[in-house]
């Protein structure tokens, strides 16, 4: 049998169901590898001993009808987990232990999975390189001193480095798809309203969405069918018919119309990205799909609109971190002094920057010029997609305008950092599903991703197209285990 941690989720599930592997063996294999991989700095909080206990308990009375029977997995540290520290990558929640469980993680445990630990991420999911975490950088398993992307950087690195078979991240402007692209893994941002936001530390409520990250499209599909559920505890959760995505997964995309938006061909885009895109177009043609040129005319306004809406919502969502009820508190002379010191010492630079932007755009006299304007632009962007979907079934674009960059390369220039999300942000603004799949390498051998954007609630179609392309590409991630001594 191949090395346990090299197996796909589907293989692991099969082997546990066939009793070729026990949950404990699998859990131990991932723990062992994680222990040897501390240099990647993927884990904020480890749950190893209790994971082993749970695996043993599972093996004593295995319920093999479950979708994730005894499968160990680590999750982004933005999901509140009962009795296990949840930090959101921030000092301000450094010591916070929830007494409740997020709906998405609960769905996962209900299907038999076991929590390995909590994965590093940008502070409050604000970042594109995992460099804003209070708990330090995450190393990309692809190469030393390379960022894994963000904000779900720990999650992407853990999957790429085989420290967890699958994981979940959250995506507000590209936080699943961009790190997936940077690490040669698959990441799906579902339709807004597909996965409950209950128990997920909020960044920007109208954009946040949890989603699966895995080594393959099939594994992603299986995890998506586990985490997606209608949840009355989230007023924005949608009650629609959810597929068994993994069961209905097919590579037959014959006759599907795939749109190619000309506005995604941006100035200064590296040739290797353009080449990758062309390769992708050829693959879907080879699968029998039809290519249609489309226009999404307001694409270039998406990022500026995003940097109004997301910080505005964040400035309000993060007001609850005030040192009163939980988390870090700085000493203060009086209440206001305590607030100001707590929030100044408790939040990192990027989070403070975004709270300031958000506060400013909502403040008296600026609301119409910024926030209202951005919401109008958002409408235009959504209209663009609605128009396009009259002609096509899905849209194919690159996931990112470049491959992974070096740690520290963009930390002093927020705008150049923000530009990383230029292809992913419009999808969040319109609430659509989007997936990033690895599709090639740049000249350094760093992975590059393609993004497939679907209609709302059409995750199945997105997954099918991704599945078909994945088969054609036969991508191999170049992981050398450089960090294991």
């Amino acid at each position, binding site marked *: 049998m191949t090395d346990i941690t090299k197996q796909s989720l589907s293989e692991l599930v099969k082997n546990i169901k066939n009793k070729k592997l026990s949950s404990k063996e699998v859990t131990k294999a991932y723990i062992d590898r994680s222990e040897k991989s501390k240099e990647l700095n993927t884990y904020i909080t480890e749950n190893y001993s209790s994971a082993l206990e749970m695996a043993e308990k599972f093996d004593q009375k295995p319920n093999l009808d479950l979708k994730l029977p005894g499968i160990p997995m680590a999750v982004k540290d933005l999901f509140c987990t009962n009795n296990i520290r949840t930090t959101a990558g921030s000092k301000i929640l450094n*010591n916070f*232990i929830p*007494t409740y469980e997020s709906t998405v993680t609960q769905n996962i445990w209900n299907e038999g999975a076991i929590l390995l630990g909590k994965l590093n991420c940008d502070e409050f999911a604000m970042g594109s390189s995992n460099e804003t975490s209070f708990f330090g950088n995450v190393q990309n398993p692809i190469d030393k001193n390379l960022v894994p992307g963000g904000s779900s950087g720990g999650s992407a690195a853990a999957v790429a480095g085989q420290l967890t078979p699958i994981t979940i991240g959250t995506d507000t402007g590209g936080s699943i798809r961009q790190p997936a692209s940077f690490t040669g893994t698959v990441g799906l941002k579902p339709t*807004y*309203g597909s996965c409950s936001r209950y128990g997920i530390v909020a960044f920007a409520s*109208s954009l946040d969405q949890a989603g699966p990250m895995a080594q393959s499209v099939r594994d992603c599909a299986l995890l998506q069918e586990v985490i997606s559920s209608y949840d*009355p505890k989230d*007023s*924005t959760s*949608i009650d629609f018919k959810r597929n068994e995505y993994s069961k209905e997964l097919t590579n037959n995309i014959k006759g599907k119309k795939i749109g190619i938006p000309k506005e995604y061909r941006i100035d200064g885009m590296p040739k290797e990205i353009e080449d990758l895109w062309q390769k992708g177009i050829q693959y879907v043609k080879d699968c029998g799909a039809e290519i249609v040129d489309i226009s999404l005319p*307001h694409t*270039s*306004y998406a*990022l*500026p*609109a995003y*940097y*109004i809406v997301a910080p505005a919502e964040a*400035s309000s969502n993060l*007001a609850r971190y*005030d*040192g*009163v*009820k*939980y988390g*870090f*508190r700085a000493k*203060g002379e*009086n*209440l206001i002094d*305590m*607030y*100001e*010191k707590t*929030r*100044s010492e408790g*939040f990192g630079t990027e989070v*403070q*920057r975004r*709270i*300031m*932007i958000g*506060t*400013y755009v909502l*403040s008296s006299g600026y609301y119409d010029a*910024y926030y209202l*304007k951005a*919401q*109008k*632009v*958002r*409408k*235009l962007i*959504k209209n663009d997609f609605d128009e396009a979907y009259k002609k096509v079934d899905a849209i194919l674009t690159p996931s990112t305008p470049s491959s992974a960059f070096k740690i520290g390369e963009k930390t002093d*220039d*927020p*705008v150049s950092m*923000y530009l990383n999300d230029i292809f992913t942000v419009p999808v969040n*603004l319109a*609430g659509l599903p989007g997936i990033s799949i690895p599709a090639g390498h740049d000249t350094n051998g760093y992975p590059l991703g393609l993004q497939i954007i679907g209609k709302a609630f059409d995750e199945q179609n997105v997954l099918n197209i991704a599945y078909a392309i994945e088969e054609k590409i036969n991508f191999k991630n170049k992981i050398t285990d450089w960090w294991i001594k």
Partner: protein
Amino acid sequence: MSIDLKTIKHISKLSRISVDEEKADKLAGDLNSIFNFIEKLNQLKTDNIEPLTSVVETTLKLRTDEVKSKDLREQVIKNSPQDNEDYFVVPKVIE
């Protein structure tokens, strides 16, 4: 447009984040470059566009009026930085 130090002080007050001179300078620089980028939106005419209130095309669901939450005082206070078992405790508020 340009965000000056006075504005930085004002928004730091509104957002309850203390900002010293050095930090204010750095923030003003960063925010100006970000707003420079955001100003691109002004090129777009949006007079007759309805703002998007929610990407989700559905209405608000209503729950029935039932008390389900029990006494969670212990749980709720457990994580607080300073407590006396019954209350959340904060430094004196000066009105």
